[in-house]
């Protein structure tokens, strides 16, 4: 895939576009983690594609020297799915915010997980709508006051990691923006994982929902003895409301979608079976040639 000698560095993945995020925004950590992970994995930039929806976090692709797609709100995952299946050689990421992922895009995750499509999905969860300047998102705390919820929100927050586990996503992990090295490690494992991988990053929005304190107070590494193939144990970790566990919750190494496709259809593919073969089946053949 790559010529043996090239050894890439973080700077090989930096684009010329300067991030427009507020100083202190948690997304910077994710961006630098992605540079680091790609460099460590030594993936040629031209083999990387990153799709996003709309949001502060959605601006991500432009900041990476790679192929990018800044799409519409909520559709990062189906875009990424198409990119991967249109060209399975690529290493494909979907990235975005909590609103993009779980609100308008919430209907797509279950199905990406069911397909186990070979895409790494990084959700930068600031528990707020950043780009539209501070409305509650599906992960916002109950009773949170924002301009759009001046008396406090009515809804209880969802739990992204628990939800992804209930969808049987085959790789589920969490990072926090205070620890970009850890995020880089998680990204590396996610990329190497066959099939769909999900990384939940708790990523503070300094302008509308500063979570740095919460992270400091609650972040806890997943215990080293946690068995990542144990779904129940993973679920237990996520349901713990005291601790914000960080690390890999769950991993199931069954084949990804591209490999499944190969296994299913390789036996049928042959140079003799072409579009022409299919079309000619519809010919009305006179009886003597039937």
């Amino acid at each position, binding site marked *: 895939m790559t010529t043996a000698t090239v050894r890439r560095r973080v700077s090989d993945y930096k684009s010329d576009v300067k991030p427009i995020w507020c100083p202190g925004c948690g997304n910077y950590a994710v961006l630098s983690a992605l540079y680091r992970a790609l460099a460590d994995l030594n993936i040629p930039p031209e083999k990387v594609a990153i799709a996003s929806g709309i949001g502060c976090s959605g601006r991500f692709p432009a900041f990476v020297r790679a192929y990018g797609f800044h799409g*519409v709100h909520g559709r990062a995952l189906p875009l990424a799915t*198409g990119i991967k299946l249109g060209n399975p*050689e690529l290493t494909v990421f979907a990235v975005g915010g909590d609103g993009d992922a779980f609100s308008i895009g919430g209907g797509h995750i279950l199905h990406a997980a069911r397909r186990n499509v070979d895409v790494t999905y990084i959700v930068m969860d600031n528990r707020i709508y950043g780009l539209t300047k501070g409305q509650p998102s599906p992960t916002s705390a109950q009773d949170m006051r924002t301009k759009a919820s001046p008396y406090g929100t009515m809804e209880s927050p969802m739990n992204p990691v628990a939800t992804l586990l209930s969808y049987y996503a085959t790789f589920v992990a969490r990072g926090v923006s205070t620890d970009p090295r850890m995020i880089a490690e998680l990204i590396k494992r996610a990329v190497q994982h066959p099939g769909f991988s999900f990384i939940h990053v708790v990523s503070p929005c300094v302008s509308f929902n500063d979570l740095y304190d919460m992270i400091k107070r609650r972040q806890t590494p997943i215990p080293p003895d946690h068995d990542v193939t144990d779904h129940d144990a993973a679920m237990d970790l996520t349901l713990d409301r005291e601790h914000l566990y960080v690390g890999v919750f769950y991993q199931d190494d069954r084949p990804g979608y591209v490999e499944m496709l190969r296994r299913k259809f390789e036996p049928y593919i042959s140079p003799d079976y072409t579009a022409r073969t299919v079309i000619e089946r519809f010919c009305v053949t006179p009886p003597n040639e039937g």
Partner: protein
Amino acid sequence: MLEDSIVIRLGGESGEGIVTIGDLLARLAGASGYWVYTLRSFPAEILGGHVMFQLRIGMETVRSVGDRIDALVALNQDGYDRHVDLLSADGIIIYNSDAATISPDETRRTLAVPLDKIASDIGVGSRAGKNMIAFGVIGRLLGFPRDIAESVVIRRLGKRKDLLEANLLGLRTGYEWAADNLPVVDDLRLPPTEPEGACKRMLVTGNQAIALGALAAGLKFYSGYPITPATDIMEFLAGELPRLGGTLIQAEDEIAALAMCIGASFSGARAMTATSGPGVALMTELLGLASMTEVPVVVVDVQRSGPSTGMPTKTAQSDLWMAVHGASDEGPRIVLAPTSVEDCFYQMINAFNMADRYQVPVIVLSEQALATRIETVPAWPLDKLTRLERVTPPPAQEGDEPYKRYKITENGISPMAIPGDPMHYYTAEGLEHTEFGAPSYDPENRRAMMEKRWRKMETAYQEYRTWPMMFRRFGAEKPDLGIICWGSVQGPVREALKRQLHKGRRVAAFVPKVLSPLPRDEIREFADSCKAILIPELNMRGQFADLLKSELGIDGYRLNKYEGIPFYTFEIEERIDRIYEELGLPEYEMEQEGAC
């Protein structure tokens, strides 16, 4: 009978094999060297309910459902009651006398076939057995050779040896019983034709032609969501595309389907989805994205009657507005409309070529009736199809300026890199952007980009107008009345035209395949050459007529049908009659000028 063709309608309970008999008859007629055009109804019930299957069989290409029925085959009482009013005065009724009785006032010829009794006599009480007997009886009445009928059954059931024997027995019984018990009815027999060699003709539905066209165009990725009447495009491709090295995904909804297609196309694959009106409505935001990011993609809309869920199994031409205008703000897109089953194939070739060349979404407007009917079509010349590739950037050289994905060019087309190319990174950008793809709100840049994107539509028009068959003209050379129509209305219009010419009226028709950007000079020239214009279409508000008026200033008489049923030829003719009367247009000595 309508010029060398015969219309046979079968009516009965759904699940009774009406569709099977109809399908076999279509194949039998096709294999015997005739041309076929079918029409069928879909019951409102989920299972059961009344089904109608109609065949028009002709000596040459058949272009419409026909007007009246020449022969009605009633498999039960409903099959008689519901359709007898459409039977022509000298029509024939063939009926299962074990399941239907004929009105005592019936004056037309009737042929009783005791289907249940014949079946039980040979011991095939099953539905399939009865169907085969009926097929045999009709085959014989129509004068098709039995050996061809047998070969049709063998082709169909070739792999199910278990069923084949019983079916062939039924078929033979039907032929024999008819030979022994029924008169030869000359009105039911078309003159003999010379069946041409293999592979000169095919029997396909519109949806099949769409799918086959896509495969011939090199489709590599399909994602769709089931919806009547588009579902079987996906179902057909699900069996074929992965075997041809492509990928097909049934998406979770139409939005995901189009997003996946856009993603796949971005990464280099020819990609499409097919849906119907409600699905396109969900897709409009993404159509805007494809226009803005300049990603080629093909969306087939098999139109059905709406609004909203409407009448999902009824035909319409009512999504033109949405296809041309349905999204926020103004993004260029190309809209194509095939005019026949045969043309469905060609328009898919065009769709992929135009999407790739102009980097825009292309919407192909098919229609329920076109999608579901079987037509005999001449085999497509697979060796002669052209493929237009995307314009990609030339290999980068040291010292090149950075890659401008959205380079402002004279024809509006900017070379588009495919991921994997190590020298032309870019981000496809849904925000307004600079030539490099960086977001920009600069007013000058904005104006230049809007103009660049829309320039592609002009380029597309200037290029496609030189391609063959992108618009057709039929009928009188110096017309008094001109008809401008789109989609499958072309069929009945051509038929009406032929008869009008025979009557000595100078009528002509112009049919664009591209509805956006319209072949404006050609249409204007045509319209200018006529004293009056008629615009028939299958919708209420006259969407195409509106388009002709707003884009080209053409005002015409309108003929709108919105009951979910295709035009009958006589409806077009009646409207022509009224215009002739109103304007006092001249009639000439009968003349034959102009091909139809």
